[in-house]
């Protein structure tokens, strides 16, 4: 019996170690590093694919060459289990010094005082903000402290499988198309293919898609106070997709569910002719299929735009770090140094610092050039980035998907679903 419990026991062991350390968290203060000649060891952690590991390691090697007193221990992995690892390390009092964090959980860490205020490091001269757009810095400011610097930006995009569309004799949609155009297009595709190819994946569960929809309606998905949209806006969004399911233009619920996490896989698998993705994913997705995919902005962007320069991931410095100054120097190198950015390229998205974009996008292939074009069009004609949502927003994102799915499978009417989502989301963010 107890051997059966061992697996859980191990999980709890981490917590045991952690809780003891958590009590002493408050006692953690930054040590002195600045002038001493003692060698400093920093630990940096990130998630990603092999190519990201390769370029990041190369950039860190260069940093070590330029800063002989500092070595950087690298702790990298895939995305699965990444957050578990970081929180467990935090609880254990041995968090990495420099952490790549995704936007959705940034507030959870920052609001609990677990991240160094990078503004102080700017004042101390360890970090420069030259070339940084003011609004992006505002977005990274939580409780008055600059908690993170965006480490790669992207924006929403829509892909169309031109090869499949050509076979069916349906024209792909291009710049300036509306949501209604997308609905007609989807129905056409479904009709021309006798239902074997859906025009678009059902995106009613995608909170990132709804975010754009809400912004196009002059609202926000989440803002600093929580829910930033009216019930009628959500209802119009879910009604839209209900109609597409009815016309056969959108994927069936079981297929939607199968490709929920990565809708572009439905396009690669030849199940749907179009879907949404983020611009930094476009090149990789195109490489995985022989079909020609075109990249456009989201539907309905001609009027009030809903797309914005979205932080794909952040660089943060842990409040547990014993060497915040050296850590800030490393962050500075990674986000501001031209050489570093020419090594890192666009794997994480576009650099936020306008001064290093050219260095990073050098030698970009044609797909990446297209992604850059979309990104630049959003820079010129886009919506401001949303301010950080309160803690608990991760649960709300999951809830959005769940409730939408119940509508897809006909377990809830749109009206009931909207009511249920609004009340449950409010209680999660409460």
């Amino acid at each position: 019996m107890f051997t059966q419990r061992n697996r859980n026991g191990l999980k709890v062991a981490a917590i045991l170690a952690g809780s003891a350390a958590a009590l002493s968290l408050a006692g953690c203060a930054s040590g002195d590093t600045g002038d001493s000649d003692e060698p400093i060891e920093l630990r940096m952690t990130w998630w990603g694919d092999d190519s990201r590991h390769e370029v990041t390691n190369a950039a860190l090697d260069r940093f070590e060459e330029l800063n002989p007193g500092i070595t950087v221990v690298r702790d990298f992995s895939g995305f699965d289990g990444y957050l578990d690892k970081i929180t467990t390390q935090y609880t254990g009092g041995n968090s990495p010094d420099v952490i790549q964090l995704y936007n959705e959980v940034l507030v959870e860490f920052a609001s609990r005082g677990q991240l160094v205020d990078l503004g102080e490091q700017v004042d101390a001269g360890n970090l420069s903000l030259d070339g940084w757009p003011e609004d992006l810095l505002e977005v990274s400011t939580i409780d008055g402290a600059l908690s993170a610097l965006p480490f790669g930006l992207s924006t929403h995009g829509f892909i169309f499988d031109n090869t499949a569309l050509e076979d069916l004799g349906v024209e792909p949609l291009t710049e300036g198309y509306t949501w209604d155009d997308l609905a007609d297009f989807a129905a056409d595709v479904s009709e021309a293919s006798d239902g074997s190819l859906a025009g678009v994946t059902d995106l009613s569960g995608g909170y990132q898609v709804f975010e754009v929809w809400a912004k196009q309606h002059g609202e926000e998905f989440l803002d600093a106070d929580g829910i930033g949209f009216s019930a009628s806006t959500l209802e119009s969004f879910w009604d839209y997709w209900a109609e597409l399911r009815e016309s056969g233009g959108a994927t069936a619920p079981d297929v939607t569910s199968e490709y929920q996490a990565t809708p572009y896989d439905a396009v690669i698998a030849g199940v749907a002719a179009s879907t949404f993705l983020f611009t930094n994913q476009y090149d990789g997705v195109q490489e995985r299929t022989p079909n020609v995919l075109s990249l456009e902005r989201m539907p309905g962007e001609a009027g009030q735009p809903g797309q914005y320069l979205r932080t794909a991931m952040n660089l943060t410095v842990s409040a547990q770090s014993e060497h915040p100054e050296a850590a800030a120097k490393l962050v500075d190198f990674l986000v501001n140094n031209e050489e570093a950015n020419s090594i890192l390229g666009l794997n994480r998205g576009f650099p936020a610092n306008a001064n290093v974009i050219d260095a990073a996008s050098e030698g970009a292939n044609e797909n990446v050039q297209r992604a850059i074009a979309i990104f630049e069009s959003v820079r010129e004609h886009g919506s401001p980035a949303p301010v950080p949502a309160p803690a608990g927003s991760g649960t709300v994102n999951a809830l959005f998907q769940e409730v939408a799915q119940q509508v897809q499978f006909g377990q809830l009417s749109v009206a009931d679903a909207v009511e249920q989502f609004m009340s449950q989301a409010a209680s999660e963010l409460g």
Partner: protein
Amino acid sequence: MTALTDSIDAETSSPERADERRGRGPDPRPRKPASLRRAILAEKIAPYTFLAPWLIGFFVITLGPMLVSLYLSFTDFSMLAPPEWVGVDNYVKLFTNDPKYLDSVRVTLIYVLVSVPLQLAFALLVALVLNRGLRGLSLYRSIYYLPSLIGASVAIAVLWRQMFGSNGLINQVLDFFGIQGMSWIGNPETALGTLIILNVWTFGSPMVIFLAALRQIPEYLYEAAAVDGISRVGAFRHITLPMLSPVVLFNLILQMIGAFQAFTPAFVVSGGTGGPVNSTLFYTLYLYQRGFTGFQMGYASAMAWILFLGIALVTAFNFWFSKYWVHYDD
């Protein structure tokens, strides 16, 4: 072999060795009380020294963390800030204000109550077939045992996702017969079913235990029954099943405990969501979501303790109920 015995002979016959052994042999003179006490003490300590690896493991890795998690279950603990005492709030919320939790309990109970009996029945069936003296038995045994080794792995769960997906192997076979398939893992009606099949497929370890137990049933029982003209079904009901019942109980308890704690298949097949529409939201998966993606480790600890108590109760019930159906030879 000869070389080995030779060298031992050489060693024992060497004069120095012999002296040494004599020195260590039983001492004819009476010992001093102090050294005697020391010897007795050493004798008492010795077993614990040998047990130390297990004891340390039990207290440090199992019991200690369990007690800490018991404490945490009464707190609000985000992992990023010290825990705050909230009394029984977590437990109250679980049963009164968390419909998703009740969903996860329902899904897990269905999974346990359907997949474990199916798996045991299947294991017994295969064991009966293999027990009929096939040639190459050990090969078959290994082949059927394989899924047990790899069944809980991520690789197999990924494979399952492919097989039961909308473009998967199952649908291709169905398509061949002109049947319109669907995404078995994407449909709330069938997603849990695919996970149950996965569990049934890992019937190898109970099968091996059944097989060993079948071999233990004395042949003369069957011979005596055959003289009385018993049918094959009768022999199975009146001899095989009663003789196997202690092993059935053993397998039942082990597999139920395992099924209550199942995590990986649901995590991989549903992409960590427990979907579609919570249909594969295993208890441990929901616990994981609350603890690690929702930053609510106190709440997750409360869930873990209810699961622990639940499993303990079910196991106790199994032992109590076994007196009505388990037959012990002696």
